[in-house]
């Protein structure tokens, strides 16, 4: 996994600061991997997509080679223990960012439904050629000002910083929209609880939600 060798990421905030100040928005396209797990940890649904905001093409470009996409599932599932600890910490369904897997710079955000289905979103920033070059560490407040094109930078800020409040809000919207559609899908009389969600309609709607919010 050559991709992961770029930098042993010291702590997420330091790196995030540097990513957010990069001037080239095309480098700021996040890749997402979204999974729904049943209460018994059976995967019900998977989808991979990329940033669509700020001119993103919506195509996922993970750091793993094509042949190693199972790594996403592996990382997501490995965060289940942390999810189980986090789920009782507050009453909300949206648990925000719960886990980070530094070797792949993968951030996991979680959403729980009351019936125990788990929505997990892995986001992975793109592999940066020189990830520590322009670091000024100003944090998320620098997002709007520094990039060459203001609009593009601000709209791609979701991609720039996986733990910023903007990102968390965007993911919340995304999760809520998926949840709404998940409920509708689960209400279909031909869907059996715990069965893989094969509905093309649901997939389209998740894709649309990803396009809209991420």
């Amino acid at each position: 996994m050559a991709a992961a060798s770029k930098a042993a990421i010291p702590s997420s905030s330091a790196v995030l600061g540097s990513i957010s100040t990069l001037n080239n928005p095309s480098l700021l396209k996040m890749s997402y991997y979204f999974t729904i797990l049943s209460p018994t940890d059976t995967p019900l649904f998977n989808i991979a997509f990329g940033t669509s905001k700020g001119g993103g093409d919506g195509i996922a470009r993970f750091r793993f080679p094509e042949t190693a996409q199972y790594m996403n599932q592996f990382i997501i599932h490995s965060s289940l223990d942390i999810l189980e600890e986090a789920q009782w910490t507050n009453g909300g369904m949206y648990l925000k960012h719960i886990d980070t897997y530094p070797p792949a710079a993968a951030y996991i955000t979680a959403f729980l439904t009351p019936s125990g289905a788990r929505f997990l979103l892995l986001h992975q920033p793109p592999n940066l050629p020189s990830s520590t070059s322009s670091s000024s560490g100003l944090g998320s407040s620098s997002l709007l000002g520094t990039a060459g094109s203001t609009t593009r930078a601000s709209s791609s800020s979701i991609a720039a910083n996986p733990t910023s409040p903007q990102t968390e809000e965007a993911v919340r919207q995304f999760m809520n929209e998926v949840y709404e559609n998940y409920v509708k899908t689960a209400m279909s009389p031909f869907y059996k609880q715990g069965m893989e969600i094969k509905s093309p309609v649901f997939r389209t709607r998740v894709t649309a939600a990803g396009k809209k919010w991420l």
Partner: protein
Amino acid sequence: MSSTKTSRIGEETRVDKVNAELVTLTYGTIVAQLCQDYDSNYQDVNKQLDKMGYNIGMRLIEDFLAKSGVGRCANFRETADMIAKVGFKIFLNVTPTVTNWTSDNTQFSLIFEDNPLADFVELPDDGRAQDELWFSNILCGVLRGSLEMVQMQIEAHFVSDVLRGDDTTEMRVSLVRYIEDEMPPEEE
């Protein structure tokens, strides 16, 4: 009876209400169970739904006439209006559009913009349900049953369904004949 007056009867007839999702889920479960029982033989499922609807319709017509207080329709066009604007309005709270009349006024279509029975439904993706199952087929039976009780023999079937990916949900209703009063056989 004028068309607007018919609409008013539909609006004003008060009936006990029930949660729409309860109806949707109950009906959905019935259909799903039938599909399972008939081993996904959708022709049989359609037939069974129609039969169930027929039995409902035979009883429902009495309830309908009592609640709405409407009298005899003068012609089949009026009947169609009554079905769409009073019957469906009272029982399902939708008003399908009556259209596509044949010139002899014996066939029309009901176009459903909104079908509460089919909310949330996605047909099974086994490659056949999309072509064979008429999910809301019970409605055909209901019309057949209820009209038969008021001396009209009709034939009703769906010709398109948004669940199958069609643009509209359309039911075709044709009048076969008015059932004349049949005298009981003379006693010898």
